[in-house]
Structures are given as structure tokens and as C-alpha cells.
């Protein structure tokens, strides 16, 4: 490759571009203003001949920078993906001809729009470098599984059977976790009618027989450091010995602890032995082993059992769980069957407020009804356990009356509490160089942002429920099972399989120096100009993935393999020293400057749209695809995440005469849709302060708008743009235009 920069621009005439636009004029602009050494028009650029033309120029003409002026960068990525050169795309199809009316009046503005996109594409590419992969990558492909319950064992087996080595660490003296304490499990196969054996011992045997899995019992993780492909983990045994192990990825399956029923004294727990929680009943059932369960207090016969659902769950009381644990209705159904199967004469009543039987639980529910288990809807207010057995005060919500029930045994359906270690938002973090082991922590990470994974709500680990389950905010560490959200064994096994695949993906990506989800395969990585850094720490604090640590001299230390390439650090940096090879303050800033700014009295405003490439930009493209029209004064630039938007872009835009700026990012908050979790939230916060800057410039705050846009907002995106165009018309032109 030649050292010198040589830009080539290719203008496509296909898909109607040639009919709607004067491509010869665009070519002239690329040559003159875009400084392109080679400019070619082609009637069908993405066909074999078009692609070969470009490749030939790269091979024999020494072209290093390619600007493809055709369709959106989201289309034809394979055809226009050239190795070892920087490539930019000017979106003339979705962004121009498909979003503008096809008539003579519109022709002038459409042509101006296309000309600007050519200028922007050339400006962008001239500040890009072809990315080479991250040089600091590791290639360890062994996978650590933390937790040896159903989830951990499933993950270990799945990983091992795919051909990767596994280290399984369990804090107890045996594998099996909570599932090993069950007498039977709820059914996981047709006909979903009877409780089944748990299968835990078979699974333990399979783990022990698998040569790729090494198991470390009675052990905890006392230090985790490194990055995907190169984690270094201290595994400390109860005996006191510590081994340092190297792994490429980590699956955290640390499971749950049953809610402490001692907090439920109004439900009689702890007052006499005839009131048990679900785990307590499993213990009784395991002891009885299929024979009738005797009354714990006196060994007497049990004639009536009452199950109280949502005990200390779905509650707004202090110290109780606000959520539904998802498995308890099915578990109570299963436990009622323990009694009915041993003796159909035993009266079993399940008191519920809402019966929730996920998965194939509905069949199981029906099976219990057939067996004669009684279900009654209502709320239990108190359990009187002063003598053996109990009296239950119950409000029947169907018959609308207060009832008192006698029972020989009461089972409280309590919930799951996630074993997610320390809450890093609550616990003060160790200073660099003074790191200590925490006994409460699961992973004991030496990351600057804290020892464990960030929580989302109720102590469960942050891991997007729908869009990217298992993904966490620590690259290369995947969580699964009840630590992620409350769940039953079937769901936990599915979760484990998903996390296993994610872990395998990440070690494969890491050894090639590529990014993990969602910019999977991205070869670029962040670099920073150390001499410009003021050690403000903003990047270390704001990185949604905790990728950036601090070195001894308090400079940021980019662990590139942990980086997801969102650019949030770039947007955070007040002195603009952080950049990526193909995405930087300049690649966007120069696009903003490249737009030809009409004079104030031309009555042609310019509106800048900075759109998240994950959701908002696709929505814009689809608006074009659906031929939804929007203002021709718009110039849209995709950004990796709204978190990467530097406020300098906004002030530059305002200073250079743009009349309005729209930022489009993903939904933030607890039910976020941001692919980088915190990016859009941070951007929103930063933009809330932009008003002051505008005021200093004597400009109206309404000229900058931030919107949450989902990928489905195809109708809404043009409306947002047109609303801004109307607003600009109302406010008048930006007075900075002529300076």
C-alpha cells in the first residue's frame, strides 16, 4: 500500500440515481472539492464489473481511500467491503432520491442534497484510516464457568461438547446447586403432567466424565483481571491454596438464594414447624421419598395442605421482593402433586392472586386440577400458628368474602434472590493500586469500575432481557440463569446454552483482535493522544463496559479487547484526544464542515441529523425505502452511538451556520434499548447542558433537539425532521451563516 493518501470516488447511476441526479456535476464536485484523484461514474456500481473497477484502482492505481456514492452504508456491505483501504459511503439512494419528490420543482434541492453528501463522503474518508486489528489481543480459548448448578453445568457441557476446554468453579463441596435439593422437578417434556426426576446426578456424572471439563469444588474467584482472550483468574480453594488460571471468557452462573422466609413472621414462618417454605417442603418430600409426608411438628397425618403463593413477593412492603420469581406457581403445583400422588384423599389448596405458569406449565396446571388440587384466588393476610398446624386468614377475591382455613401444613412460596455479588453503584471502589479481595463479591474483578457486574433492578445483573440476553456490561463475561432474572430450570438451561455460544463467539473474535457484539467483527480500536490528556477520568467513569482502567500515572489504560467500539469515551473526552482509526472527531466534524452553507437570504436552511447507526439510521433508511418524504434541507450523519457524539460537533455546526440539529438515539432508562446500554443516556445528559452553550452564542435552545427513536419509528422519523424544519422557519435563519 502506498504511504500517500489517494482518494477515489465512485458515483453509481443505478437504482434511478442516474435519472434523478446530474452525476457528471457530482463528479466535478468530488474532484474539485472532495480532492478525489480518481472519479468514476458507473451505471451499476454494485455489479461484478463495478466492484472490479474499484478493486483494479486499489490494486494498480494505488488508491488508499474510497468513497462510494451509491446506496446507504447499510446496503451492499459485502460488495463494497474492500480490504486494506478506508471506505466511506455517500447515501444518495435512501438518503436523497428516495426521500425526495420526483418532480421538476424538487430537482434543484435534490441535486444540492446529493452534492453535499458527496462532499461529506469525501471529507469523511480523507480523515479515515483503514483499521488494522487490535494488536493487544489474547488467544486463550478456555472458558471459565462460575457456579456448578443446573445453569453452570449445562453451560460447561455445551461449551465442552462444542470443543472448548472448561474450568468449572463451584463454592460448595458438590455440584448441583439448588436443584440438587429438590425431590423432583416440574416436567420438561411431553405430556407435562407429572413431576419428574431432577436429573441432577446424571448431569453431574456427565460433567465428571467429560475430559474437557475440569472442576474445582470448594472454590471461589478471588481475582479476575484481563480481557477477552486473556483473562487471568485467581481460584482460591477453601483450604487456602490459590491457583492462577488463564481463560478466554467467563460465564457467570452464580444462581440464586431462596428468599429468607424468617422475614415473613406475619405468615407464621418460624413459629411452628408446620409452616415451611418451598425448599423446606422439598426437604420433607425427599425424606418421605414417595410415601406420605408426615406433619413436621408431631409426625401426625396430614389431611390438608395449603400453599400460599407470592409469599413476600410481588410486594411493596419493605424488605420483601417486588417481583414475581416465575417458577413458584409451577413449583407449588408440583408439590401439591407430591401429596395427591401419595394419597388422593389429602386436601391440597393453592391460594394465589394470579396463577402464572410459564412455558408448558398450563398443561401441568391442568394435570393438577385433574388430580383434584383446589385453586382459590385471593389474598392471605395472616397465618396463625399458635398451635400445631395453622389457621389461615384469606380474602377470597372471587366470592368477595373473608375466609378462615385450617391446615395441617402451610407451604410459603417465597422467591429467588440473585447471587450477583456486590452492588458496584453502592459500594465504594478501591483506588488503583490498593485493590482488595471482597468476600461478598462473585468475580472480584480488578476493573476500575468495580468488582462485580452492574445491576439493573432488584439486584439482578444488567443483561438486556429481549435484545441481547447474556450480554453484560463486561465484555467477555456472560451471565445466565437466575442471576440474570428469576427463572425455572428449563429457562436456566436455555440461558446456559445461549451464554455458552456467546462465550465461544467472544474468544474467537478476541483472538482476531475484533470487537464483540454489537459491532462484532469491527477491527478498529480506540487510541488516545497521551500528551493531550488532562486525566479528567471521564472516559474511565463513563465507559459503559468498564473497559478503561487507570495506569499508575493515572492515565487511562484502554483494554482494547474489552472495548465494544461504541465511542462513548470519544464523546466524553473534553479535550478530544480519543479516536478510532475510522471514526473520530474529525471524520464526523469534517463532514459537518464540508456541507455547502447557503447564505442567509437564500432561504435554504440546513439541518444536521446525527443518527445512531443501530436504530435511528436504519429507520431513516426505511423511511426512504417506503418513499416517505422529508425536508431537503437535512444532512444526516450516522454515529456509532449517541454516546459518541462530541458536544464540539454541535457547537461547530451552530458556529458554521446550521439552523437546527437533531440527535436521534435509542431509548434509555431501565427499559433501555441502547445497544451500548448507557450511550444514549449519557448523550442525553450531555445535551441537556448544550442549552447554556447556545445561549452564549445568543441562539435559541430549540435549535437542538434530542429524540429517542426506535428502529420501527419509520413513520415518525420524517415527522421529527419536518417538525424541526418548521421550527427553523419559525425561528428564522441562524445569524452565524455569513461569518
Amino acid at each position, binding site marked *: 500500500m502506498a504511504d500517500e493518501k489517494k482518494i477515489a470516488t465512485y458515483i453509481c447511476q443505478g437504482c434511478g440515481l442516474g435519472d434523478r441526479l446530474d452525476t457528471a456535476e457530482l463528479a466535478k464536485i468530488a474532484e474539485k472539492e472532495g480532492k478525489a484523484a480518481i472519479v468514476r461514474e458507473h451505471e451499476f456500481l454494485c455489479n461484478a464489473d463495478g466492484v472490479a473497477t474499484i478493486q483494479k484502482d486499489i490494486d494498480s492505481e494505488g488508491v488508499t481511500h474510497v468513497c462510494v456514492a451509491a446506496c446507504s452504508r447499510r446496503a451492499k456491505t459485502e460488495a463494497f467491503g474492500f480490504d486494506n483501504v478506508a471506505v466511506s459511503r455517500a447515501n444518495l439512494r435512501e438518503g436523497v432520491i428516495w426521500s425526495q419528490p420526483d418532480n421538476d420543482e424538487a430537482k434543484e434541492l435534490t441535486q444540492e442534497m446529493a452534492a453535499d453528501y458527496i462532499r461529506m463522503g469525501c471529507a469523511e474518508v480523507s480523515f479515515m484510516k483503514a483499521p488494522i486489528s487490535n494488536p493487544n489481543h489474547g488467544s486463550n480459548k478456555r472458558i471459565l464457568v462460575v457456579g456448578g448448578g443446573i445453569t453452570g453445568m449445562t453451560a460447561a457441557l455445551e461449551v465442552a461438547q462444542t470443543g472448548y476446554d472448561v474450568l468449572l468453579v463451584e463454592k460448595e463441596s458438590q455440584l448441583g446447586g439448588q436443584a440438587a435439593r429438590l425431590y423432583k422437578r416440574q416436567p420438561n417434556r411431553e405430556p407435562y403432567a407429572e413431576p419428574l426426576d431432577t436429573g441432577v446426578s446424571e448431569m453431574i456424572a456427565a460433567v465428571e466424565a467429560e475430559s474437557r471439563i475440569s472442576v474445582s469444588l470448594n472454590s471461589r474467584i478471588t481475582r479476575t483481571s484481563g480481557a477477552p482472550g486473556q483473562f487471568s483468574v485467581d481460584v482460591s480453594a477453601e483450604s487456602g491454596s490459590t491457583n492462577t488460571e488463564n481463560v478466554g471468557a467467563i460465564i457467570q452462573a452464580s444462581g440464586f438464594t431462596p428468599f429468607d422466609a424468617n422475614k415473613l413472621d406475619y405468615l407464621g414462618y418460624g413459629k411452628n414447624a408446620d409452616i415451611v417454605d418451598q425448599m423446606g417442603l422439598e426437604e420433607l418430600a425427599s425424606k418421605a421419598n414417595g410415601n406420605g409426608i408426615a406433619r413436621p411438628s408431631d409426625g401426625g397425618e396430614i389431611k390438608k395442605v395449603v400453599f400460599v403463593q407470592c409469599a413476600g413477593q410481588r410486594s411493596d412492603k419493605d424488605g420483601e421482593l417486588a417481583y414475581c420469581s416465575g417458577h413458584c406457581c409451577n413449583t407449588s403445583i408440583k408439590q401439591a402433586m407430591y401429596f395427591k400422588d401419595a394419597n388422593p384423599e389429602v386436601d391440597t389448596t393453592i391460594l394465589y392472586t394470579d396463577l402464572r405458569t410459564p412455558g408448558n406449565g398450563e398443561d401441568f396446571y391442568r394435570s393438577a386440577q385433574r388430580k*383434584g388440587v*383446589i385453586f*382459590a384466588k385471593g389474598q392471605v393476610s395472616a397465618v396463625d400458628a399458635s398451635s400445631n398446624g395453622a389457621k389461615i386468614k384469606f380474602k377470597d377475591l*372471587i*366470592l368477595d368474602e373473608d375466609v378462615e382455613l385450617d391446615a395441617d401444613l402451610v407451604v410459603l412460596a417465597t422467591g429467588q434472590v440473585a447471587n450477583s455479588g456486590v452492588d458496584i453503584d453502592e459500594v465504594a471502589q478501591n483506588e488503583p493500586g490498593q485493590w482488595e479481595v471482597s468476600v461478598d463479591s462473585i468475580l472480584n474483578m480488578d476493573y476500575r469500575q468495580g468488582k462485580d457486574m452492574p445491576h439493573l433492578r432488584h439486584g439482578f445483573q444488567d443483561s438486556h432481557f429481549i435484545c441481547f440476553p447474556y450480554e453484560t456490561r463486561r465484555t467477555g463475561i456472560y451471565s445466565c440463569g437466575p442471576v440474570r432474572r428469576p427463572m425455572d430450570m428449563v429457562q436456566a438451561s436455555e440461558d446456559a446454552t445461549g451464554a455458552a455460544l456467546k462465550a465461544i463467539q467472544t474468544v474467537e473474535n478476541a483472538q482476531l483482535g475484533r470487537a464483540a457484539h454489537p459491532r462484532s467483527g469491527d477491527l478498529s480500536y480506540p487510541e488516545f493522544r497521551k500528551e493531550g490528556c488532562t486525566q479528567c477520568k471521564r472516559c474511565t467513569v463513563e465507559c459503559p463496559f468498564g473497559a478503561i482502567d487507570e495506569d499508575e500515572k493515572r492515565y487511562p489504560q484502554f483494554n482494547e479487547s474489552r472495548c465494544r467500539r461504541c465511542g462513548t469515551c470519544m464523546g466524553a473526552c473534553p479535550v478530544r484526544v480519543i479516536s478510532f482509526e475510522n471514526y473520530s472527531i474529525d471524520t464526523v466534524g469534517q463532514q459537518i464542515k464540508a456541507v455547502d452553507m447557503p447564505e442567509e437570504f437564500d432561504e435554504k436552511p440546513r439541518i444536521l441529523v446525527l443518527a445512531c447507526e443501530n436504530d435511528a439510521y436504519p429507520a431513516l433508511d426505511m423511511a426512504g425505502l417506503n418513499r416517505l418524504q422529508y425536508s431537503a434541507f437535512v444532512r444526516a450523519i450516522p454515529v456509532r452511538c449517541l454516546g459518541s457524539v462530541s458536544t464540539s460537533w454541535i457547537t461547530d455546526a451552530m458556529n458554521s451556520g446550521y439552523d437546527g440539529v437533531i440527535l436521534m438515539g435509542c431509548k434509555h432508562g431501565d427499559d433501555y434499548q441502547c445497544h451500548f446500554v448507557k450511550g444514549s443516556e449519557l448523550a442525553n445528559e450531555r445535551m441537556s447542558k448544550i442549552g447554556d452553550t447556545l445561549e452564549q452564542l445568543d441562539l435559541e435552545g430549540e435549535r437542538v433537539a434530542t429524540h429517542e427513536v426506535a428502529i420501527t419509528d419509520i413513520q415518525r422519523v420524517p415527522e421529527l425532521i419536518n417538525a424541526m424544519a418548521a421550527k427553523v422557519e419559525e425561528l428564522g435563519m441562524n445569524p452565524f451563516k455569513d461569518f
Partner: protein
Amino acid sequence: MTATNTAVVAKYQNNFLQEVEANVEEGDWVKMCMQCGVCAGSCPLGDAWDHSPQEIFMMIRAGKREEVLTSDSMWMCTSCYNCIVRCPRELPITHIMHGLANYAHRLGIAHKKNPTRRFAKIFWDNVTKNGRANELTLSIRLYFMDGIVSGIKIGLQMVGMGLGMLKTGRLDPMALVMHKGIKDTKGLHAMLKKAYEIEGKRKGYAS
């Protein structure tokens, strides 16, 4: 309390659900109700009932024997089958309602004043007498259900229609004195008696 009722109470003690399962037509479906309330919401006569089918099922499970069997709710069912069509658990709700009504009647504790029950009784007596319904006597019995005065009142209201039907040959006045029944009325009566006995024996009624 009738003797039949006392006997059944003794047999099932407090387990009304078991009693319903054993003795009421389609009664073994009651336990399968999941209390979604779709039947209650679908019933076009919902407002006229004291208890919706959903409530009736819940009351059975709660052992409210007296309240259920003496209620007039199940007598209000018009057999539109809306609930059966909509029940997500596919309970034959209409049939259960009729089963419950019939069972309460059989035990002799059914709601006394309910007009549906009384009409049903009149119809049954009429149709089993000769093995074929006599429309004229059926109507007259129905008119005079509540006594002579109200019977004459209703009769006078219906005079116009009665004459019209007479003219067009839709009403045979001779049926008042001579109704043509089936050939073997005696055989029918014997058959019904036997069936009644068999049912009583099977369900343990003291007949």
C-alpha cells in the same frame, strides 16, 4: 330438607365438589375451571344472575352446598352456548348449569319460585302424560300457573292470537278433550319409572 337430600349430605359430608362430580351431569369438569371469568363476561343474561358460572364453580369448590343448590342462578341459563364457545378450558358450562338445576330439583331443594323451573315441570308433566306435548293444555297450564285471576287476565290478552290461530288451523280446540298420544303410553311410563329407579340407585338417593 328432603330425605334424598339428607342422605346425600350424609354420604359426602362436606365435600361438595366430590358430590357434584359424582351426581351432576358433566360435574367432573368443575375442578378444571381456571377462574378467568370469560363465561361471566360472555353471558347475555349476566345481570339477571345472582352468581355467574365462574362464581358458581368457585362456590362449589369452597363447599357452599346450600347456597349453590338453592340458588336460582343456574335456572336462568337460556342455553345460548356463548360460554361454552368461549371457555378457554372448554368446560361444557351450559350443560353443567342444567345439570346443577336438575340435581337441585331432584334433591327437592331447588329454588321454589323460579319460573323456569316451574315451566320445566309443567312441560315435563305434559309431555310424559301421553308421550307427546299437548300445546293447548300446556299453554293453559302455563297461563294459570299463578292462579285463576292472573290466568284469566293472560287468557284475555291472548284471545286475538288464539282466534287467529284457530282460523288458520294452527290450533285444534279438540285437543282440550282428546289428545292423541303415542301408542304405548303405559310402556313409556314404565320406562321412565325404571330409569328413575336406576338413577336413584346409582347415585345413592333414598327413593
